[in-house]
């Protein structure tokens, strides 16, 4: 649970400073001037993170596929780019 809360905090407030002791929201010490996310926001983010991670993986794969298609038009492959040190 500790790691889940950390991931949610980093996702919701990526520039904020805080300290978390233990596994509960009540153990969160907010150090930044901005407002700490509520327990409900953290719970929602924890639930959403797996979907976001999957979407990020899919987006990365789609970008790779598109790039490889562009290379194919030029008669190149990813190995050709590696050979060029790119």
């Amino acid at each position: 649970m500790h790691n889940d809360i950390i991931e949610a905090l980093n996702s919701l407030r990526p520039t904020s400073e805080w300290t978390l002791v233990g596994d509960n929201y009540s153990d969160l010490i907010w150090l930044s001037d901005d407002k700490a996310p509520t327990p409900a926001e953290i719970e929602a983010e924890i639930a959403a993170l797996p979907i976001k991670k999957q979407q990020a993986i899919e987006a990365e794969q789609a970008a790779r596929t598109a790039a490889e298609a562009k290379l194919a038009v030029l008669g190149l492959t990813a190995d050709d780019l590696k050979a060029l040190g790119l």
Partner: protein
Amino acid sequence: MATTTPNFGWSVPTSSDLVKNGATAIETLGDSIDASLVDLKGGTTGQVLSKASGTDMDFTWATAGGGGAVVQVKSATYATATSTTSTSYVSSGLSLSITPTSASNKILCIVNMSGITARSGADTGFFSRLRRASTAILDDNAYVTYILATGATATQLGQPVTRVFLDSPATTSATTYDVQIKSDGGGAATVTAQWNSNTSTITLMEVTP
């Protein structure tokens, strides 16, 4: 005709000596014993008798455990995961108190912490420092771990964090030692002590100077 005792060589009369010489013999024997035991005089409460040389009956009174000896050992553990993105030091939760028996004694502090450094969009380093009574005594401002990565990909690196320091608290009052941690990278660059609820330990050893 006088003779001597087998171990210490004290002069004693023999059974065939004249009675009139008995008082003189007893006086001589008493003086010999007195001289032999003179090193046993003195000393104070808590001191122990120590050999001053290899010579028989050559003793001296000394402080118990003198010469780098361990007087007492205290140890504590903490296993609650503590994470922070703070760039200022915060408590790791690991602390321990000790009451030195002598103000001249030293305290050897040994810390072993399970730590992890994690980044997600910002490079970071894991800092830790040791404090005595809220005053930093080991704060070398050196990275224990520095993670250098680019892009948004999350990266984590676990490591044992070991800190050893010989302190001179100069007190006989109860003194608390604790460990603080901080991140170098700020938000989204997280450092964690007792990662995954692993146990961290702090050991304090009072030793004579």
